[in-house]
């Protein structure tokens, strides 16, 4: 535009010069004649009008200016939005990886989990036999491929130091069925088919890096798994995870077997020992069609082999999409947590909407002036909305950045039993979701103030110096409701957190029946090789001699006062093999009505066990060295067993027997001990019977040592001693007993911490909300306050004026919150232990905390109100 206008003036001047006017004079006249370039430019601009894009950019720059003018407000709003968006981003990345994204295999919707159920007996997932596997492969005509899967733990030796790890036995076609490819070497194939176990193994990337230092020459190396030799033929890529539940987290070794020879029993239809199977459906057949055919096949099999399939069991086959089987049972918890996190966004939006409404009422004059100058209502609303969206995007970006940085940190706290956690990352879908949430937040909190305040602008005239004694009652009513709802939400979350915390504390304080302080625990497992010739612990005599030697060496370590071993460490409710050892019981002189009635958990211990754990003996005696193999079999029972099975008689001297085999000898009860919380701090009522480990040895052992030395210091010595007896034995999980007890509460602790976090955030937001509301109220009413002060009102009255509003809001919110909590916590009852859902202490303390915090948040604006200089207020108000 400049160039054009300048050209015009120069051309005009030239003409004048041609007419004889000197140059200077000509330029001067030209300029005067033209009349003010800048004004011309402005008129030109106006005439040209603004394109939509230009007006959006103008809005944007104006919003930026407005936000910069109020840095405190902007910072507070950005931080709150960042909180909401960040939490949602993290949550969604988990939900996306676990629930939404398909499994990382080709055509994952074709993969199914196969289960055998006996609905007539109320049983699901019963084991199956080899002929049934054959039926699935050959007879059903439904599967492209089927593979058994069986996982357990075993000892790995021959690669650096011995390790205890989880392994899985599969059919040779397991990897080709899933579509997995090796990182180096090869995976199983049809050539690996063997009647028993094939002598080949495939290892995970994790094991390869840990124990072999990522050595590419690992192929062909030999390892011993539970003392059986295997050759490593391949390494899996880093991202591979078995798509199913695992014991410890990741399967490190894969083996393959035909299950038709040792160590498996002979493949007969009634011999059911295979635990699980997965399959890939043929192309073109739907899940429903496949299920129908399998159900029909099951009926046919039942008829053909009536003796192996009793009619009332109604044995049948069920298939389920593999992803569903994997994540189905964590879906509810994840969805609930997502809901809670979205609630946080809601609270965040409520908060900011409140703050914006407050600001909008202060900008009424500005709005009125602008509309008088010709701005349409939609233009005004658009500008306010731009401000909100700009705010929410700034907060959103901050939130995404925080989520990206802290994701790995957050994942550390998530309990490991949630599947597919390794696949959690922030990818395109998560980013899109985060941006959408930011946009939604911006719209949520921006729309209401934008519409509301522009409506006011249209109708009000410009009043000179009128800030009034307040703001429109409709606005203030709306804002009060918003704050009260925020407070109610906060109360609900705080009550939930309080109950969970109390549960945690009660559990920790609960007497576990033993003294975990100054006890160190270590675990080891004797191998169970497939080849009996490779088993150094085949006979009871061999095992007990190992146990005795172990105890002798442990006791010899300096600093150890007393040593003992047990098959089940207290508060761990799974023995390492994964099965709870609850056995059927038979009591002498008592008819066995049904084998489900008399049951007890069998725990094997060495004689000094109770002394190490400092569990008191109630009656009778402890085990001694004399209770060995070949001597009279004895047991010690706990209180629960005594109460349950001999309520009126003295259990000492009574005799019991495990299992239904009548040829087994009777065992005498020689002692009664106080209950030990063997299965978990929150599990009561399971009867336990202790047997001497020399009479009934166990492969999985836990050593308990009474000592004042810390676990870290003792660990190398313990390892050394165990290696000296048998260098192939891995020692794992050496820690203090206190840590073991703490760890048993890990998932409870996680959910309690999560809810406490939410409650803290909600409380913070609510108090910011109260502060903001009252601060603005004071600003609006400063004229009135000045007036009151001039008329003689003491400080206290001004304070009370502001505080009263805060207290009223807080009380209303607390009352509403308490009512909601009373309803909500009844649903929580299953998560609690030792605490009633309507625990009076929690319901008293939480409102108190909230009122105190609300009062503090109100105090600052109230105090500021008393500092108002009446002269200034009256002049400017």
């Amino acid at each position: 535009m400049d160039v054009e206008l300048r050209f015009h003036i120069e051309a005009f001047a030239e003409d004048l010069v041609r007419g004889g006017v000197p140059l200077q004079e000509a330029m001067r006249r030209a300029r005067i004649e033209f009349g003010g370039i800048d004004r011309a430019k402005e008129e030109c601009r106006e005439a040209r009008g603004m394109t939509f894009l230009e007006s959006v950019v103008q809005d944007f720059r104006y919003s930026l200016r407005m936000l910069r003018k109020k840095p405190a407000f902007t910072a507070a709003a950005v931080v709150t939005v960042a909180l909401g968006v960040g939490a949602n981003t993290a949550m969604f990345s988990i939900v996306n990886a676990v629930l939404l994204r398909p499994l990382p295999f080709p055509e994952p919707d074709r993969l199914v989990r196969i289960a055998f159920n006996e609905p007539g007996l109320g049983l699901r997932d019963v084991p199956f036999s080899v002929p049934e596997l054959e039926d699935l492969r050959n007879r059903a005509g439904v599967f492209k491929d089927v593979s058994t899967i069986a996982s357990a733990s075993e000892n790995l030796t021959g690669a650096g130091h011995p390790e205890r790890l989880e392994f899985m036995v599969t059919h040779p076609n397991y990897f080709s069925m899933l579509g997995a490819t090796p990182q180096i070497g090869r995976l199983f194939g049809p050539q690996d088919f063997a009647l028993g176990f094939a002598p080949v193994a495939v290892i995970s990337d994790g094991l390869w890096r840990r124990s072999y230092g990522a050595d590419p020459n690992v192929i062909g190396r030999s390892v011993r798994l539970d003392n059986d030799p295997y050759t490593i033929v391949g390494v899996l890529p880093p991202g591979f995870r078995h798509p199913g539940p695992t014991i410890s987290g990741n399967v490190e070794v894969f083996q393959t077997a035909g299950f038709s020879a040792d160590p498996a029993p002979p493949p007969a239809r009634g011999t059911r020992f295979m635990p699980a199977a997965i399959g890939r459906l043929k192309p073109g057949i739907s899940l429903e069609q496949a299920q129908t055919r399998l159900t029909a096949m099951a009926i046919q099999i039942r008829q053909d082999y009536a003796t192996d399939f009793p009619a009332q069991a109604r044995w049948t086959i069920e298939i389920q999409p593999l992803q569903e089987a994997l994540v189905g049972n964590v879906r509810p918890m994840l969805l609930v947590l997502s809901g809670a996190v979205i609630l946080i966004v809601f609270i965040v939006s409520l908060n900011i909407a409140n703050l914006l409404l407050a600001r909008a009422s202060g900008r009424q004059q500005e709005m009125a002036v602008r509309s008088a100058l010709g701005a349409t209502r939609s233009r005004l609303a658009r500008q306010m909305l731009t401000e909100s969206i700009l705010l929410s995007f700034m907060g959103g970006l901050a939130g995404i950045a925080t989520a990206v940085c802290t994701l790995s940190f957050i994942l550390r706290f998530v309990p490991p039993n949630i599947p597919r956690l390794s696949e959690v990352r922030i990818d395109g879908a998560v980013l899109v979701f985060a941006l959408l949430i930011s946009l939604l937040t911006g719209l949520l909190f921006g729309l209401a103030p934008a519409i509301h305040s522009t409506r006011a602008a249209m109708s009000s005239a410009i009043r000179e110096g009128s800030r009034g004694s307040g703001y429109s009652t409709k606005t203030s009513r709306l804002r009060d409701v918003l704050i009260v709802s925020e407070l109610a939400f906060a109360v609900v979350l705080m009550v939930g957190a309080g109950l969970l915390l109390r549960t945690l504390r009660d559990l920790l304080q609960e007497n576990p029946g033993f003294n975990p302080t100054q006890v160190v625990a270590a675990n080891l497992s004797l191998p169970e090789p497939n080849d009996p010739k490779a088993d150094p612990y085949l006979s009871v005599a061999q095992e007990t001699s190992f146990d005795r030697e172990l105890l002798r060496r442990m006791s010899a370590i300096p600093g150890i006062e007393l040593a003992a071993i047990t098959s089940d460490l207290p508060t761990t409710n799974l023995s390492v093999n994964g099965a709870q050892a609850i056995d059927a019981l038979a009591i002498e002189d008592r008819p066995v009505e049904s084998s489900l009635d008399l049951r007890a958990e069998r725990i094997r211990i060495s004689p000094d066990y109770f002394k190490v754990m400092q569990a008191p003996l109630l009656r009778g005696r402890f085990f001694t060295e004399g209770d060995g193999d070949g001597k009279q079999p004895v047991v010690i029972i706990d209180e629960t067993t005594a109460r349950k099975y001999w309520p009126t008689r003295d259990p000492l001297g009574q005799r019991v027997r495990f299992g239904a085999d009548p040829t087994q000898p009777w065992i005498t009860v020689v002692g009664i001990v106080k209950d030990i919380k063997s299965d978990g701090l929150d599990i009561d009522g399971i009867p336990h019977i202790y047997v001497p480990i020399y009479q009934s040895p166990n492969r999985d052992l836990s050593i308990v040592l009474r000592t004042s030395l810390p676990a870290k210091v003792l660990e190398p010595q313990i390892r050394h001693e165990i290696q000296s007896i048998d260098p192939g034995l891995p020692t794992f999980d050496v820690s203090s007993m206190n840590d073991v007890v703490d760890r048993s509460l890990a998932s409870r602790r996680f959910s309690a911490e999560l809810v406490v976090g939410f409650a803290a955030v909600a409380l913070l937001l609510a108090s910011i909300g109260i502060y903001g509301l009252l601060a603005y109220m004071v600003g609006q009413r400063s004229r009135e306050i000045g007036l009151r002060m001039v008329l003689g009102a003491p400080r206290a009255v001004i304070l009370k004026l502001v505080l009263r509003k805060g207290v009223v809001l807080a009380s209303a919110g607390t009352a509403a919150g308490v009512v909601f909590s009373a309803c909500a916590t009844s649903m929580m009852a299953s998560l609690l232990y030792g605490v009633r859902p309507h625990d009076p202490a929690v319901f008293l303390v939480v409102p108190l905390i909230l009122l105190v915090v609300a009062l503090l948040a109100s105090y600052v604006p109230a105090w500021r109100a008393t500092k108002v200089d009446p002269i200034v207020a009256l002049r400017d108000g």
Partner: protein
Amino acid sequence: MAKQIDLLQGTLDMLILKAVSLGPLHGYGILLRIQQISKDRLEIQQGSLYPALYRLEHQGWIISEWGESENKRKARYYRLTAAGKRRFQAEAEKWNRMAGVIAGILGTKPEEV
């Protein structure tokens, strides 16, 4: 020079369109041409020219592009668009009709009322 006749905004637009319809011109050239066609009886207020040009361009009746002037300087040239041509014809018709009506009113003899 004859007395300046005050122009209404609409008529200025029409004159500009007419000037440009005879060939593309830069702003100063349009000014001169209008003066020329009106046989020096009309002189446009220089300050109101450019806002009018921008408005007409925004409305799509004329279109501008940079070019070289007679003395090799950079100047913006305006020319008529097809829509502008149609608009000009419509406006010119309206103006002539209006002029006819007003002339008729002004020429009414007292007896004809």
